[in-house]
């Protein structure tokens, strides 16, 4: 029953995203309008995919570091992506895809660095073991360092354009097109599948690393795979749409409250719920103050935080 409700809310959200927009499209032309086919539909689909990816990345990371505060952007990725974007603008890298590619490179660079910091007892490969606490600390440190370099570049460079890199970082789906949707559709399934396949070992990991090991989970490998998959999902999300906070933090908690702690259900429901949250937030961002537009990250925070506070209240009272 809950699944039917979730699916219908998902469909309604996508439909609302298609029907609502700052431009009025006459009903007769709706199916032929390039505004619907080239702008609204790819944008809704992309927002849904990115929201779903962030939701699943959040589930994976929260299980991995066993910390309810874990957010995909806590691990230094937003700092790395921001640095990549600013470097692309400062160097005037040519081409329409320079900015997202550079942001992706920056995010992956930060990920590799944090991963190496988090590996203890060996230098990668077979010997290493990921320490979740060091991952979190390393993520915060790498993120802060990248942010410092970014700010230094912005204040030193002779380009007012760089200010706009920060606007881009606040998040949004202005760059949505069928090409970006295709990129996401080709890219996301592998890391999503890796996290989905780890559903049962992640349940065991919730009991603690040692019990999970005794119960037959290859904890070392599990942590590495889930970390890499969640980070690669987040890196793609930030390259496509900037830093969109709270989705990866709130969605796993909401789903845990409604569907319980089993990752077999938590992962697909987080995908669907994350998509709903972000697609709805983007529709609001486009329409609430039309003809102007809000950065979608602000809308997710405005919807997400009160919702989260409400859930926290219920959680702690009961």
């Amino acid at each position: 029953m809950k699944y039917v409700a979730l699916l219908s809310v998902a469909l309604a959200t996508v439909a609302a995203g298609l029907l609502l927009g700052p431009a009025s499209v006459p009903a007769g032309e709706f199916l032929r309008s390039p505004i619907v086919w080239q702008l609204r539909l790819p944008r809704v689909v992309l927002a849904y995919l990115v929201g779903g990816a962030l939701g699943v990345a959040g589930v994976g990371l929260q299980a991995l570091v066993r910390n309810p505060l874990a957010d995909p952007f806590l691990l230094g990725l937003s700092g790395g992506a921001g640095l990549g974007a600013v470097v692309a603008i400062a160097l005037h890298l040519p081409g329409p895809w320079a900015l997202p590619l550079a942001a992706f490179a920056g995010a992956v660079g930060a990920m590799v660095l944090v991963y190496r910091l988090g590996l203890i007892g060996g230098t990668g490969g077979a010997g290493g073991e990921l320490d979740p606490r060091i991952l979190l600390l390393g993520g915060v440190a790498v993120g802060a360092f990248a942010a410092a370099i970014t700010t230094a570049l912005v204040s030193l460079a002779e380009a007012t354009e760089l200010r706009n890199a920060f606007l881009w970082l606040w998040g949004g789906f202005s760059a949505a097109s069928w090409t970006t949707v295709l990129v996401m559709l080709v890219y996301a399934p592998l890391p999503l599948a890796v996290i989905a396949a780890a559903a049962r070992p992640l349940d065991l990991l919730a009991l603690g690393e040692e019990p999970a090991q005794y119960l037959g989970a290859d904890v070392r490998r599990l942590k590495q795979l889930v970390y890499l998959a969640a980070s690669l999902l987040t890196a793609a999300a930030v390259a496509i749409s900037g830093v969109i906070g709270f989705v990866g933090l709130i969605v796993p908690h909401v789903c845990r409250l409604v569907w319980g702690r089993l990752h077999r259900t938590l992962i697909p429901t987080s995908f669907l719920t994350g998509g709903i949250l972000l697609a709805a937030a983007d529709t609001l961002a486009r329409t609430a103050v039309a003809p102007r537009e809000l950065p979608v990250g602000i809308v997710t925070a405005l919807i997400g935080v009160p919702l989260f506070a409400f859930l926290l209240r219920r959680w702690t009272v009961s």
Partner: protein
Amino acid sequence: MRRWAHRTHLAGFLACIAAACGTGNRALPSGGITVTDDAGRAVTLARPARRIVSLLPSFTELLFAMGAGDRLVGRTAWCDYPPAALAVPNVGDGMPPNIEAVAARRPDLVVLYRSAQNAPAASQLERLDIHVVVLDLNQLTDLGRVARILGRLTGRERSADSLGQAMDSVASQPPAPSTYSLAFIVWDNPPIVIGAGSYLDRLAALAGARNVFHDIGSPSAQVSIETIAARDPDFVAVLSDSATQPSFAARPEWRVVRAVRRGHFLLLPGQLFGRPSPRVAQAIRELRNRLNGEGGAP
């Protein structure tokens, strides 16, 4: 030193009272010059400024246009017009100003753009006994007033008045009947456009082009590509010093906008169009020529 500073403060206070009594913006009988700036402060100089640091490209252009360019001892990194301005020492990017670099030029007047970011700089410079005039320069209508204030402070009232008159007559022109429509796109991701509260909106109107985002009151705003496509401007105007189309023109989502699809870009050089300047009449003429030159198609 302290007492002297104290006395100049007292003089400022008296000047304030004088301004309140309605004699402001006049040369005082003692030969001093007092103006009230856009922050409401009274600025009193004992004699016309001789060592000026200008912290906005528009101020630099105005000072050169009224023949006070030789008094400049400092400018920002962005002050690139007229070419003679490049010979003036550069004190940095100016936003917010580097106080030490400004003070090192030993100016007797610093011309500062009024913004929240610059507010601390004004009081810091005054603590160093450097006179500061804080001025607004956002709109076409500001040019004449600012020219007159700078003229008084430099003792070039005559040429500043005629410059101001020229600026005011441009500003008070009725807008030309608009043959074309355009959207100024300042940034593509997220899309930022120019609204009504801007110099460029007025410039376009005078050149005979309607800004399709004239209904947005603020100087600039983030909008969606969908809104730009729906408003369907004849031209997309971009501040750019290059002759090639901006890179977003190749992105599929932008090609829903008719002007982008057809390559109807107006690439406007930032030096002439990026700021209110005494060359506004030239900017209007050039925009009109470009509209008519490339405007056969829409």
